[in-house]
């Protein structure tokens, strides 16, 4: 799979990241080397293996429906660049 500039710009848009023209070439080179590695992995035959299966036959861990509100509002907001009245504050978003 080849990662062209158009796909890269689309990916940037989906992630709300602006990508300047001078970075396009290097970025697509980087991404393509990752994809090449994935292509290499794809050579392994996996059509007989279920996705997310594992050799230990582990099952999904479950928990009981018990409330434990251990993190405070301060903890959660601690790293927020902007906050007000206990809300996260972000640039205006209008759909």
């Amino acid at each position, binding site marked *: 799979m080849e990662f062209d500039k158009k796909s890269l710009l689309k990916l940037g848009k989906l992630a709300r990241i602006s990508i300047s023209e001078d970075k396009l070439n290097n970025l697509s080179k980087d991404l393509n080397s990752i994809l090449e590695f994935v292509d290499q992995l794809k050579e392994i035959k996996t059509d007989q293996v279920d996705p*997310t299966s594992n050799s230990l036959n582990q099952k999904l861990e479950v928990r009981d429906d018990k*409330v434990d509100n*251990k993190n405070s*509002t301060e903890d959660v*907001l601690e790293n927020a660049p902007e906050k007000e009245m206990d809300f996260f*504050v972000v*640039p*205006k978003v209008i759909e």
Partner: protein
Amino acid sequence: MIEGWNLVIGIEIHAQVNSKSKLFSSSPTDFGSKPNSQVSLIDAAMPGMLPVINKFCIEQAVKSGIGLNAKINKKSIFDRKNYFYQDLPQGYQISQYKDPIVGEGFVEIETENGQKKIGVERLHLEQDAGKSLHDQDPNFTFVDLNRSGIALMEIVSKPDMNSPEEAVEYVRKVRSILRYLGTCDGNMEQGSLRADVNVSVNKPGNELGTRCEIKNLNSFKFIHAAIVYEAKRQIKLIEQGESVNQETRLFNTQSGETRSMRSKEDAHDYRYFPDPDLLPLTLDDDWIKGLQDSIPELPDQIKERFINEYSLSSYDANIIVSDKATSEYFEDVVKNRNPKLVTTWVTGELFSILNKKNLIIEDSPITSKQLGELVDNIENGKISNRQAKEVLEEMCESGKGASEIIDEKGLSQISDENEIESLVDNVLNSNLENVKKYKNGKDKLFGFFVGEAMKLSKGKANPKIVNDLIKKKLSQ
């Protein structure tokens, strides 16, 4: 709905699981708490946090699937649905894509042409997002993550509905089933149950039209209004020779109009893939069987039973079973009493009081026991229907019991024949002139005699006995 046009509707219902804690974290799910007070580091998507699934939520999804007559999938997979938005801190929603926990099923609804089966495509578990407030500040959006990570069941219908009425009936029915099961409280005002509606129009015989999706409708009224508006909008476009764009639209509850939310060119590309933090969910047969055995009687079965056991009409039975609390209330009152009388008092007088006071039956000022006492007094002839209405009003005001009010007000109906006979004799003897006219053919005077006798008894005489006695005396 509109002459010469077909309407095709499919609905996605988002129903919040009635759990105390979230789907993948132990944060509480209470409605209306202070902003960001129910958020764990998992819900805020801090690095290194791992999701652990809530067993209760799995059970509720399977129970709901059974209630929707649907196939339970013994293996299902959680996927990441990737999109970038400020109220989604993970950058993806954990949802189920190709392998949902519940597969195909159906519900039956009542339409003007009788019963109709509406197909259910699937039910899957997913996380709710946080909440954005756009009106707090002119330049900024405020984000509250309390809802982030709460468990939702997304129930996807097949495009089997053909009118706004059918769409509303379908949502009503699904809501009712979930409430009977106790898997979702169905509170639409608080957003515990909301609907996305897909609408398209086409000419009969032609292929299906392009559909638009109207997001986040949280009342039956809005579902109906949005579909009517959207169908008319699409028909107008087509008739003008334009075409309908496939897009997501928002319903404005003030103006009753829909407007475009996202256009096709920036359509989302969700890049689903299995969540590497979560192994596939597997269910075993015995466990599913156990849940099947725990399913309570559901509205369709109760309706059937009410019709057989209490000879209710299909119409009355439908009204009573549409809400779990109402059918429980009705069943409390009807035990050992006249079903017809009880139906009239529950769906008539009680409902009108609840409507007037804008109350749900759970908060009824009249308990089922109190209404039963009132019905007893009607059944044994102590008070007339008319008097009973007065008593019921007084019961609402004072909270006193029916018998107590009847005694206090001296409302007790006179049913003693001898007593009434002397009243009737009294009336006839003091109106000899009118008795003569009646016997000469002036039938209309019958009502006059009854009226006089009732007046004399201060309204307490049993009207049936008064009628019978006057008829008997005048024919002598």
